[in-house]
């Protein structure tokens, strides 16, 4: 469980920064405390992992799908958890100084914590499906972070682009995981990693690999999906420092490292990763050279470095994997510090444009030194961490790449290194050296002391690792790579000096060539400016999205041209066609002997028919139509009584009463008559359609009634008492067997009530001053008769409704019926005494009542989980009380109470909201 808290804590305490903000405390402090608390379990688990154990915890979530809340912590996870939490803490400290007070900092740190939790979930998930869940959470939370300054169109577009690309990749990953799960027969990471040979031999392996790679390449911004990352630079710089150094973009790399034992080591793996990685590395390094925006340069350099790591992963030897892990760590450290430095420069000068920045080393010497060291690490300058991993990279392109690529790979690797030296040189030289800048928006100076601390820490790490790799980083590297390989480590030593060899020559070549390239940059820029604008991934994606939207609009326009009527007619024609087609050639054999018609039915059926016809005939005289349809409803209730459905009869009757009240309240504002406005032809067509539909239903009903009913209800009848604890099977189905449906049902009701309240908010309704005959409305406000009656009625009605609620499990009644009775009783008070009088005595917000009802039902269901049973499992028992004797209590009754409260809230929210409109009209 300790392990799970690492992941769950940031989620559970997401809102803590917002709470701190309310209390006028620093939200950054809250975020930092949460990150520290999440790191605390590592004090116990870390030594275990170092000792070679793998910490695991698993709780079933959806066992039927193979989805488990399972977490694992091995060397690889530990490395990533360390990076996520460590750099996360530094970013939080940095962001505290970076963000101004006008920014909603509570919101920012809340997002950051949610993102942190999602990342921690990705790297510790021990179940592939769970990994996908967290993967998508990182896409969603990064969307919020990138679009944090939502006032800026650039930020919104960047966020949307990132969500689109990485979200789509996430779907591909889900598909890939499903294929893998199908091959292995389990989603558990341990099983999958152990089944590498099985997966690689399966014919579906290429499909699974392609889908997983689609997820990893989009997330880690590999060419041609790289373009979301530069546009994500619209995010606040702390976000860039976090997402694009240690976390978000490394998720793709992590995924491939994690799945290396399962998917790696094949030709397909080698070629797809090396080609993609190489193309990404070279292309992005080239583009980075031409970016004038500091963060743009860093963005493309990030893409390029990710390509380098991808290439290493693709080479597939244990040594290459080791180099990949090493470079990943180094990149996280120096890139985070560079982003922070860029943010400091932006913060203190007001611009990130390298054509305007110059000579800042005079104003901010410390920042200049730090940024220079970090950029040196990025360029691969000796004595810094980046140099070591780059040397390993160069060496491996020779050793492995040579077999497949010949001399091409080492040359390309050197070229990539050369570009990275050039853009690193530009970052340092353009900004910190040269003459003083002429037109900066602000006068530059050093940032606040503690804003620089995170950068200092990171740069010191760059130096320590670079100077004494064996003492600092080697144990971590061994641990993480061992977990990655799930096998023995390759022989390796980390030294600053390996003697004069080929990798060193490549490094020197890259350094010298890169500086030369930087010196001729101006000529290259003019060349680039002509070619570049023609190729923009963002523009292509936006064109594709716009095209899709335009196509949808054309389609929707074609379908909706005829308005509502045409849509209904199309639906009707389709259902009539399908319905009649079902009868074609077959008429079910009538096996049930027709029952006789009792006298009462001879009375009721004609009333129903006449009232139905009257509703149609008088539908333009609205008040008359309401009365006629009320009669139909009453006969339907009677039919329910006759055909053995007492619960339905009660419900129908009560709903009928409330609906009529609703109509009456609304009629005041509505036109009293509908105009006759369609010609005879159209009415004739409509009548034909109606008769076709009605005839079909009549035939179907007759056929159904003459065939023997074949139902599954024996199960419910048999199980209601022993399993649900009630004799009223209908109620037991509602609150127990199908409780999830009922929960959905009351939620829909709540949404309808919310819609009613929202739609009447701000509506300007004019009531007529006279009735349809021209007589003014009476000034007598309420009926005295009704007032006198309503007072004793309320307690009795409430008593009856509680009785109905409580007995529902065994006799007709229950939450729906009880709720409707209570609602009606209170509505009668409104009618008798007026809105203001009741509102004053019953100061309830009915929407909140409805919501709490839904909450009661949901919590009852959740409580079952607390007892280790599935959601909404019910239980019951028998108790003996002093007066009442033996009685039964069932948890389903609490659920039914929730239904009751929700129904009361909905009824009153709807009726009282419409009723208040009358008060508004009267006042005006």
């Amino acid at each position, binding site marked *: 469980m300790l392990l799970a808290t690492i992941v769950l804590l940031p989620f559970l305490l997401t809102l803590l920064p917002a709470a701190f903000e309310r209390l006028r405390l620093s939200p950054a402090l809250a975020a930092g405390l949460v990150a520290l608390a999440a790191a605390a379990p590592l004090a116990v688990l870390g030594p275990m992992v170092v000792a070679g154990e793998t910490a695991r915890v698993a709780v079933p979530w959806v066992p039927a799908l193979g989805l488990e809340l399972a977490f694992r912590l091995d060397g690889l996870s530990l490395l990533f958890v360390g990076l996520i939490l460590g750099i996360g803490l530094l970013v939080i400290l940095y962001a505290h100084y970076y963000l101004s007070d006008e920014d909603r900092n509570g919101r920012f740190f809340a997002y950051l914590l949610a993102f942190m939790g999602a990342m921690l979930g990705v790297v510790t998930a021990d179940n592939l499906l769970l990994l996908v869940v967290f993967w998508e959470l990182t896409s969603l939370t990064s969307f919020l972070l990138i679009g944090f300054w939502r006032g800026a169109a650039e930020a919104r577009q960047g966020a949307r682009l990132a969500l689109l690309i990485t979200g789509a990749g996430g779907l591909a990953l889900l598909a890939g995981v499903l294929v893998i799960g199908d091959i292995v027969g389990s989603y558990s990471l341990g099983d999958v990693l152990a089944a590498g040979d099985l997966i690689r031999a399966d014919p579906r392996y290429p499909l699974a690999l392609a889908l997983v790679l689609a997820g990893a390449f989009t997330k880690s911004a590999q060419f041609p999906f790289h373009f979301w990352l530069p546009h994500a630079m619209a995010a606040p710089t702390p976000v860039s420092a976090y997402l694009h150094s240690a976390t978000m973009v490394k998720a793709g790399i992590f995924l491939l490292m994690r799945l290396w034992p399962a998917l790696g080591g094949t030709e397909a793996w080698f070629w797809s990763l090396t080609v993609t990685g190489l193309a990404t590395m070279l292309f992005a390094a080239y583009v980075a050279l031409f970016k004038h925006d500091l963060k743009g340069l860093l963005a493309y350099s990030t893409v390029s470095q990710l390509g380098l790591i991808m290439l290493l992963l693709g080479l597939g030897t244990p040594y290459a994997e080791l180099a990949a892990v090493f470079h990943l760590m180094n990149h996280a450290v120096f890139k985070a510090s560079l982003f922070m430095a860029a943010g400091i420069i932006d913060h203190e000068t007001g611009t990130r444009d390298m054509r305007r920045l110059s000579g800042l080393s005079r104003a901010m010497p410390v920042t200049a030194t730090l940024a220079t060291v970090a950029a040196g690490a990025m360029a691969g300058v000796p004595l810094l961490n980046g140099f070591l991993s780059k040397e390993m990279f160069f060496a491996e392109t020779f050793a492995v790449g040579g077999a497949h690529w010949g001399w091409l790979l080492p040359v390309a690797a050197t070229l990539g290194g050369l570009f990275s030296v050039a853009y690193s040189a530009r970052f340092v030289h353009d900004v910190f050296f040269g003459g003083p800048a002429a037109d900066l928006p602000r006068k530059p100076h050093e940032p606040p002391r503690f804003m620089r601390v995170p950068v200092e820490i990171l740069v010191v790490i760059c130096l320590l690792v670079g100077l004494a790799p064996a003492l600092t980083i080697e144990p971590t590297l061994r641990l993480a790579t061992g977990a990655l390989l799930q096998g023995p480590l390759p022989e390796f030593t980390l030294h600053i000096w390996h003697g004069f060899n080929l990798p060193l020559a490549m490094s020197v070549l890259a350094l010298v060539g890169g500086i030369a390239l930087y010196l001729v940059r101006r000529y290259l820029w003019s060349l680039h400016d002509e070619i570049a604008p023609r190729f923009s991934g963002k523009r292509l994606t936006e064109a594709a999205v716009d095209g899709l939207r335009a196509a949808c609009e054309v389609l929707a326009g074609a379908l909706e041209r005829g308005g509502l009527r045409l849509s209904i007619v199309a639906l009707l024609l389709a259902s009539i066609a399908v319905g009649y087609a079902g009868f074609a050639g077959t008429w079910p054999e009538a096996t049930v002997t027709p029952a006789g018609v009792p006298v009462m039915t001879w009375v009721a059926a004609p009333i129903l028919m006449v009232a139905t016809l009257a509703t*149609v005939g008088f*539908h333009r005289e609205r008040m008359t139509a309401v009365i006629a349809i009320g009669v139909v409803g009453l006969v339907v209730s009677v039919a329910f009584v006759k055909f053995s459905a007492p*619960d*339905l009869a009660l419900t129908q009757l009560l709903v009928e009463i409330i609906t009529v009240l609703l109509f009456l309240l609304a009629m005041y504002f509505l036109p009293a008559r509908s105009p006759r*406005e369609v010609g005879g032809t159209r009415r004739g067509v409509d009548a034909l359609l109606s008769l076709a539909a*009605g005839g079909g*239903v009549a035939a179907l009903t007759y056929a159904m009634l003459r065939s023997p009913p074949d139902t599954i209800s024996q199960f419910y009848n048999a199980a209601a008492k022993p399993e649900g604890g009630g004799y009223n099977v209908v109620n037991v*189905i509602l609150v127990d067997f199908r409780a999830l449906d009922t929960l959905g049902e009351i939620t829909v009701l709540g949404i309808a009530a919310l819609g009613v309240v929202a739609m009447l908010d701000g509506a300007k309704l004019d009531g007529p001053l006279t009735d349809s005959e021209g007589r003014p409305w009476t000034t007598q406000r309420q009926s005295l008769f009704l007032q006198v009656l309503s007072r004793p009625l309320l307690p009795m009605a409430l008593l009856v409704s509680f009785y109905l609620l409580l007995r529902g499990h065994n006799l007709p009644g229950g939450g729906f019926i009880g709720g409707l009775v209570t609602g009606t009783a209170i509505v009668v008070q409104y009618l008798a005494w007026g809105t203001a009088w009741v509102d004053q005595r019953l100061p309830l917000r009915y929407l909140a009542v409805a919501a709490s009802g839904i909450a009661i039902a949901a919590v009852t269901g959740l409580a079952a989980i607390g007892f280790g049973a599935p959601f909404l499992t019910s239980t019951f028992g028998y108790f003996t009380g002093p007066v009442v004797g033996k009685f039964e209590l069932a948890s389903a009754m609490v659920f039914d109470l929730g239904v009751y409260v929700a129904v009361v809230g909905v009824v009153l929210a709807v009726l009282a909201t419409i009723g208040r409109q009358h008060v508004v009209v009267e006042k005006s």
Partner: protein
Amino acid sequence: MEALFAAALGLLVAAGVYLTLRPRLFSVLLGLTLLSYAVNLFLLASGGLLAGRLPLTDQPPPWPDPLPQALILTAIVISFGMTAFLIVLSLRAVAETGHDHVEGREEEGGR
């Protein structure tokens, strides 16, 4: 009995369909209400029509089919929610446009 029940149901459906095709929200509302009566009765019939019994298992069998009844019970309450929503929709339409035509605009030659 079966024929009478089926005929009444057919009439309810025909009337409901005709009213939903009218151009005023109010008529559409009446039509949908009739249709939901019809659907509920149809569901009830799907379990067989058993007169004069109770769906309580402490009573002697035969029992009526409880499953359609449970479905109908929630359907009744849901259609109340829908009715309320549509009524308020027409109220809002009247507030915004002065009428409750389903297309949001009066047709030519109307009134």
